[in-house]
């Protein structure tokens, strides 16, 4: 039987590579006979090669400096050509670019495969994305819209994996040593607590859990920070219970340590994803630009803490000196949850209410994670009213699962505050406007098709219809600025239309026609969701009026 060959391109950082691995593992589990290759950067892949080799049959690793060994452009081009030839010799059937970077797009375009998913460039240097889930990533995930899916599941969907196939539980978990691994670092200042909060937390953890050892892990570049942390007077008396492994351990060493630990505490980072790989229960403190639903470690043993500040999550380019979201998560919340996890308590709403005060809980959201039919989901334990962002995320989850995977899911109607009900009501206007625009799109696409097929072609009318479609795009763009939570929908169909299949005007117009039909249908679904959600508030208002 012919063995199908799939090549995955992942040129971004170690955390993304681990998440790619977690999706690829599921692809391999569902399709044991495929040959799976990976293209990655050496500097990111080498540290986790012991993991990559368990899933990928072939690894094609490079670093840019390798191409410049002879220090001139001509020989660098030859080196690149040789590298690509090595990959192409394998004759892959499918390439999947999960990187969404410019370099990866060009790489994808140079590889010979019958089918290509993800970002690529054509010979006119235009961006091309053939598959719908990659169009979703390009339009939503890359564009800061609130993605309702875990990134690992999105990778899985791109790969076409149907089932959620995860690691079996660790049967020897109870035999693990009494270790807690702490990684107090992150790639940006916005994503991590200040050192004083970490020293308070470690002090409290040590006091609450007297038989545990605390291992601080990190990269060589974290050494100056950990020196300042360990210099805190609160930690001086911990003696050999506090072990500094920062800059002293390889990733493989950290992996082994996590395999022998009962708990991990840290921010959204490569180490948190490694903790998920080792099935170590984890508390993740999400701050700054982190989008918990998207990047929470892929494990059902995660408690994710996120601030309730309106500005969270923020965007990378937005400067922030005050870091208000950092103050919303107290160290006492982390230490209380940690103590609960270590004694085997179930962390649920009752646990939080019984062990923490409103002062601690008012400004944050506590999520637990679990595997559902479609993948990993976060569920809020703190039972606040859903924010407007969260409401739309829940709608989009259902919409995209249906539209992109053909999977029908239902959700409970979100409970909304009166203020959010009013905001949702305002969004109805935006949705109605989009619906009208998409119907105009249908009209003008139909006009182009019927005109092009007629015996006497009216070129002026065709030109007018094309101009109108351009205007529709502009008006949709204005609509999404006025109603930012409609951005995901608008951007997806814009990208989808930009990648319309077809060589002739008629073929492209037929693709566009389907695009506008789908877009109009999804806006009606969104309308229905909003209407149902605000209905109780309308009924209450009517009852009040009657009284």
């Amino acid at each position, binding site marked *: 039987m012919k063995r199908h060959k799939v090549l995955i391109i992942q040129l971004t950082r170690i955390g993304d590579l681990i998440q790619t691995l977690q999706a690829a593992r599921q692809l391999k589990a569902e399709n044991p006979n495929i040959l799976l290759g990976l293209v990655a950067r050496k500097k990111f892949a080498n540290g986790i090669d012991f993991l990559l080799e368990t899933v990928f049959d072939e690894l094609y690793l490079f670093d840019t400096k390798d191409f410049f060994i002879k220090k001139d*452009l001509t020989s660098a081009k030859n080196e*690149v050509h040789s590298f690509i030839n090595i990959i192409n010799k394998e004759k892959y059937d499918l390439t999947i670019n999960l990187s969404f970077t410019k370099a990866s797009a060009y790489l994808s*375009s140079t590889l010979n495969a019958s089918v290509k998913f993800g970002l690529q*460039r054509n010979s*006119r*240097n235009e961006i091309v994305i053939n598959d719908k889930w990659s169009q979703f990533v390009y339009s939503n995930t890359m564009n800061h819209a609130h993605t309702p899916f875990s990134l690992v599941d999105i990778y899985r969907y791109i790969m076409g994996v149907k089932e959620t196939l995860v690691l079996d539980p660790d049967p020897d978990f109870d035999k693990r040593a009494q270790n807690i691994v702490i990684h107090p670092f992150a790639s940006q200042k916005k994503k991590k607590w200040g050192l004083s909060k970490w020293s308070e937390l470690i002090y409290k953890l040590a006091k609450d859990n007297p038989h545990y050892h605390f291992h601080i892990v990190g990269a060589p570049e974290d050494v100056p920070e950990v020196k300042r942390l360990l210099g805190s007077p609160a930690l001086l008396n911990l003696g050999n219970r506090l072990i500094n492994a920062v800059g002293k351990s390889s990733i493989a060493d950290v992996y082994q340590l996590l395999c022998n630990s009962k708990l991990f505490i840290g921010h959204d980072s490569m180490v948190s994803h490694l903790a998920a790989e080792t099935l170590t229960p984890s508390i993740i403190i999400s701050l700054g630009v982190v989008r918990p639903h998207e990047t929470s470690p892929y494990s059902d043993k995660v408690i994710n803490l996120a601030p309730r500040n309106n500005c969270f999550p923020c965007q990378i380019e937005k400067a922030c000196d005050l870091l208000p979201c950092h103050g919303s998560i107290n160290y006492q919340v982390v230490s209380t949850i940690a103590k609960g996890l270590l004694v085997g308590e179930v962390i649920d709403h009752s646990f939080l209410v019984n062990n923490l005060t409103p002062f601690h809980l008012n400004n944050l959201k506590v999520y637990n994670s679990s595997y559902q039919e479609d993948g990993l989901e976060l569920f809020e334990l703190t039972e606040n009213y859903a924010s407007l962002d969260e409401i739309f995320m829940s709608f989009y989850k259902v919409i995209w699962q249906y539209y992109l995977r053909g999977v029908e899911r239902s959700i409970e109607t979100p409970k909304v505050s009166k203020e959010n009900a009013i905001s949702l009501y305002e969004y109805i206007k935006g949705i109605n406007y989009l619906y009208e625009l998409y119907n105009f799109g249908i009209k003008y696409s139909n006009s182009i098709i019927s005109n092009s097929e007629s015996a006497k072609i009216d070129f002026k009318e065709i030109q007018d219809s094309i101009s109108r479609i351009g205007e529709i795009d502009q008006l949709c763009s204005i609509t999404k600025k006025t109603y930012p939570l409609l951005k995901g929908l608008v951007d997806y169909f814009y990208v989808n239309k930009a990648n319309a299949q077809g060589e002739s005007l008629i073929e492209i117009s037929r693709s566009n026609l389907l695009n506008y039909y789908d877009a109009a249908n999804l806006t009606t679904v969104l309308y229905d969701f909003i209407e149902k959600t605000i209905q109780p508030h309308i009924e209450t208002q009517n009852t009040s009026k009657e009284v």
Partner: protein
Amino acid sequence: MSIQEEIHITLKEIQKKLADGHNLSETELETLFLTSLIEEEG
């Protein structure tokens, strides 16, 4: 000529080719892969 200067000239040539309505060759796409890597890594 430094590598940066070589890259600059190569990119100009590619841009001109595209502006003149020509398609890029496999070799030129490979070159753009290489130059993008350099750009991403600063």
